[in-house]
């Protein structure tokens, strides 16, 4: 009996390892390919003939890659900070205050979750053209500054904050805003980190809206920069440069992911289960 289970477990490990190879291989291939010279892409080569750094040099001399990186960081950080702040503020207010219109406001916000981004990008574009927001940071960022999902999630967690704690702070004479910031927020840290991770990844990888609102090369975010460079017809695909760009975009995220993997994985599972 014991022997049979152990064989079963070995078979499972074997299958899981085959899966690991399939799942991880594209990343390995991306890195290997970024070190090849362009002619090597016309025949099959597994290893680079020699480790060639010219693709990386091209990334920084022939494109505005550094700028795209900067843009991506600015957009992802600002939008995430805004979303965290407003989602928790609104979630807190809806969960902890009794006032006329509470339900109505909640339903109003929740109803926006049903509307897909695709329906909104056209009005947003018309709006941006009208107000001069096209090709600006504000234009890229404004749609994401608040999200109904975040409000919903934070409201769920704010219900769990004990009222006694808030009342005690009120008796101490704290202002309502400081109670929110210094008493309520620390109670929902796991939810904040989960939402923050989701929001950051979502904005870091966002494509549909930025590709519409950005028109000059210097305002592109990383995904738009990589996508536009790669699809531009400049005499065939420059595979080594495309792979170098992808590697530089993906590797920092993978490193961060391995460092914080427990928190990231559990955070995403948490938000999935909660909703």
């Amino acid at each position: 009996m014991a022997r049979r289970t152990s064989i079963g477990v070995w078979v499972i490990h074997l299958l899981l390892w085959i899966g690991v190879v399939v799942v991880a291989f594209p990343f390995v291939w991306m890195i290997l390919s970024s070190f090849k010279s362009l002619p090597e892409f016309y025949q099959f080569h597994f290893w680079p003939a020699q480790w060639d750094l010219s693709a990386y040099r091209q990334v920084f001399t022939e494109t505005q890659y550094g700028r795209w990186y900067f843009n991506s960081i600015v957009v992802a950080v600002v939008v995430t900070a805004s979303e965290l702040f407003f989602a928790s503020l609104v979630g807190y207010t809806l969960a902890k205050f009794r006032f006329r219109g509470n339900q109505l406001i909640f339903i109003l916000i929740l109803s926006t979750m049903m509307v897909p981004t695709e329906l909104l990008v056209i009005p947003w574009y018309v709006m941006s053209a009208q107000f001069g927001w096209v090709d600006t940071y504000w234009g890229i960022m404004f749609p994401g500054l608040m999200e109904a999902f975040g409000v919903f999630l934070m409201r769920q967690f704010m219900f769990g904050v004990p009222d006694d704690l808030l009342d005690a702070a009120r008796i101490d004479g704290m202002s309502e805003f400081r109670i929110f910031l210094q008493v309520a927020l620390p109670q929902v840290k796991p939810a904040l980190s989960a939402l923050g991770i989701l929001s950051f990844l979502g904005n870091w990888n966002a494509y549909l809206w930025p590709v519409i609102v950005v028109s000059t090369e210097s305002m592109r975010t990383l995904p738009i920069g990589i996508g536009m460079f790669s699809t531009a017809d400049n005499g065939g695909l420059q595979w080594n440069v495309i792979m170098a760009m992808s590697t530089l975009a993906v590797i920092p995220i993978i490193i961060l992911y391995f460092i914080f993997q427990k928190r990231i994985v559990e955070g995403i599972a948490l938000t999935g289960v909660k909703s």
Partner: protein
Amino acid sequence: MQPVVLEPRRAPVTKRPPRMSLAARRALTAYAFLVVPVLFFVGIRILPTLYAFGMSFFTDDGQGPTLANFRAMLADDTFRRALGNTLLYVVITVPAQMAIGLVLALMIGRVRHLKGFYRTVYFLPYITSVVAVSWVWRLMYDPNSGIINEVLGWFHIPAQLWLRDPHEALLAVSIVMIWQNMGFAMLIFMAGLEAIPRSFLEAARVDGAGAWQTFRWVTWPLLNPTLVFLAVTGVISALQTFTQIENLTGGSGGQAGGPLNSTVSMVVYVYNAGFNDFNLQYASAVTVVLFLLILLVTLVQLKVLNRAYEY
């Protein structure tokens, strides 16, 4: 707000002006906290939604409300292709990524070592940039020098055209989507499996149920909410497929969605109509159809979930 009522003058008493009740003051705080967010949601989400609906009933020639956009859509072969392809993406990717995710979650649940490692690796594609991984897959799919054909060659399977073959391209795109999303399904299934009380499984074992019977009659029914959640989120995101198709099939002389419209999805169609042909009203009409599809899925979800809780 209470209307102001003038009270008859009383004998002057040295009192502070009447203070708001505690409840009123707290309500005022709440409104102060909510005013900016409510303006945002109305201005950036709700009014634009209504605007998009409104736009879909107008055309460039200045005619009043008309169904012309919807009629043109139904008459357009590319739109029908986009709708059909989008449904194919749903039908191919959602069951596949859920099945793989469930098998992975069950297998990882059975081993004692390396659990965290497996979970981390399988989830990795889900968090990486769709654009970057699409280009890597495009390189791997390359018919002449791609590694996929090379590996098939080891097993004497003839080289395929993949993304360049109208009959294979949609499947090739779907494989990338499945590869990227199965880790999410796995993660949610793992959480769902962990939520099943151990005593249920032990009770089944005591009653003499085998592994399959336990799964079929205990685990599977208890996973129902997880299944519904994954099915709905999976269907909704498959209906919105865009970035993979743009990057796997776009450029190099061809519009995204090729070859021969074999991979075009509804959102790619919207993008081409709105931002390549600049027919924003027509594009809005297509997004209205997409919205209705998503709404339908959401309503079905509510119905299924309610039924699940009945017993």
